[in-house]
């Protein structure tokens, strides 16, 4: 058996593939333990830290979780609130009570109309569906700027460790950026050129998402982009 003690190298694995063998390893997300073997249950990037082995998904639809900030589109208005599509398997619902001000039953469309985009937080995931709120700071209707969509699995790369990547992008572009965990991203800048610069760099990140030293690559990218354009 191929036992590794010095930690395991990152690698792409496919479902059913033996990732690593050894009693010391523990099965994390996207894996299962089979005897002493850790086996992948999905396609992705296998990583190990402190003997915990997990598979980071490269693809797949967004899985809603409580506490996630997401960006959605108002699909319908009911007596009790708004039906919102967040590009997940289920539609989400924003009830009247989860809006920071009093709304009369007639005034729903003034707060959020069909087709409007909104930044919201997930407060419940159950068999009936997904519940949202816009009561906290930073949760609001989107009236201006650009909303783009990326593969939700690439969101952690766009944000970076402790927000390092997204802060780098904000600093270099001067834009306000809200990254929804569902892969929708709201970019608001002083002008469209700045917003498009963000769109472009985010595409760059999603294409190169698994190379090491991505932050340096992005810094370099901004240097070239700015140097080239002016």
């Amino acid at each position, binding site marked *: 058996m191929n036992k590794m003690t010095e930690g395991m190298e990152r690698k792409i694995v496919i479902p059913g593939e033996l990732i690593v063998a050894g009693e010391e390893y523990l099965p994390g997300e996207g894996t299962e333990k089979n005897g002493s073997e850790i086996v992948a249950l999905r396609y992705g990037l296998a990583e190990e830290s402190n003997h915990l082995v997990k598979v980071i998904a490269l693809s797949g639809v967004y899985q809603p979780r409580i506490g996630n900030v997401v960006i959605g589109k108002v699909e319908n208005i009911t007596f009790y609130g708004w039906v919102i599509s967040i590009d997940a398997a289920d539609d989400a619902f924003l009830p009247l009570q989860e809006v920071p001000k009093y709304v009369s039953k007639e005034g729903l469309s003034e707060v959020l109309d069909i*087709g409007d*985009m909104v930044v919201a937080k997930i407060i419940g995931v159950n068999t009936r569906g997904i519940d949202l709120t816009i009561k906290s700071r930073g949760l609001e209707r*989107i009236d201006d700027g650009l*909303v783009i969509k990326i593969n939700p699995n690439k969101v952690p790369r766009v944000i970076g460790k402790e927000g390092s990547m997204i802060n780098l992008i904000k600093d270099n572009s001067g834009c306000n950026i809200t990254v929804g965990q569902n892969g929708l991203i709201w970019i608001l800048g002083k002008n469209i050129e700045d917003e498009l610069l963000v769109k472009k760099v985010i595409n760059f990140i999603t294409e190169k998402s698994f190379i090491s030293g991505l932050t340096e690559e992005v810094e370099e990218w901004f240097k070239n982009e700015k140097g080239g354009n002016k």
Partner: protein
Amino acid sequence: MKTPRVTANRIDEYLSSGKRFDGRKLNEFREISIETGISKKAEGSARVRIGKTEVLVGIKMDVAAPYPDSPNKGNLMVTSELLPLSSSRFESGPPKFPAIELGRLIDRAIRESKFVDFEKLCIKEGEKVWSIFVDIYSINADGNLVDAAGIGALAALKTAKFPKYDEETGKVIYDEHTDVSVPLSKEIPIVTTIYKIGKSLIVDPTQEEEDACEARVVIGGTAEGTIFSMQKGDAKEISIEEMNKVLELSKESKKNVFSKIEKFLK
């Protein structure tokens, strides 16, 4: 998800300053690539990519009776399917309007231009003629499927070879293709579409841009400016002045497309 309204507004705003999100000019196409002979069982076939948009077009031929009102002419049948494989927006089931329209738009451009010489498809007047089936499938829908389908139909027709026909048994022998091409005229009908977003007119939209578009005009015609077929789509009015611009842009786009696909049509 359809492109959000805020984003659509930004697209419009940026277009009015003469610019597009992906850096193209308003009259500029994405990269066009054509691959022919992608399905050996077809009499002719082509894969066309425009940016991330991809269509497959195949030609099948059969011997059938002519229509009573045109006893010495072959038949043409263009159909299209917008496969659910190609976009989450397309559903399974009987073809819906966009798929039916796509087939008809291509059909009319080919038919009205007399690109196919139908009289040469006659085997025996009133009894037997060749039928040509042009079948169009979307593989990845990222805007401007109509123009891609038009290019695909041209390339597939151009490379098609008749199967062998046994006059005695009246059977078509598909396993043996002849080296006879479909009789085509030199007047090549190119289908290009002009899209209206706000006050701007563009060609070859991405899906994002197509979502922001309010009206479109599909025109089949030659690179030299002859027009054979036309259809304004979507419920938004176009001024006469705009229509004049549409015609100019359409002619220019046909020249442009022709220069890119010319080598596949020889």
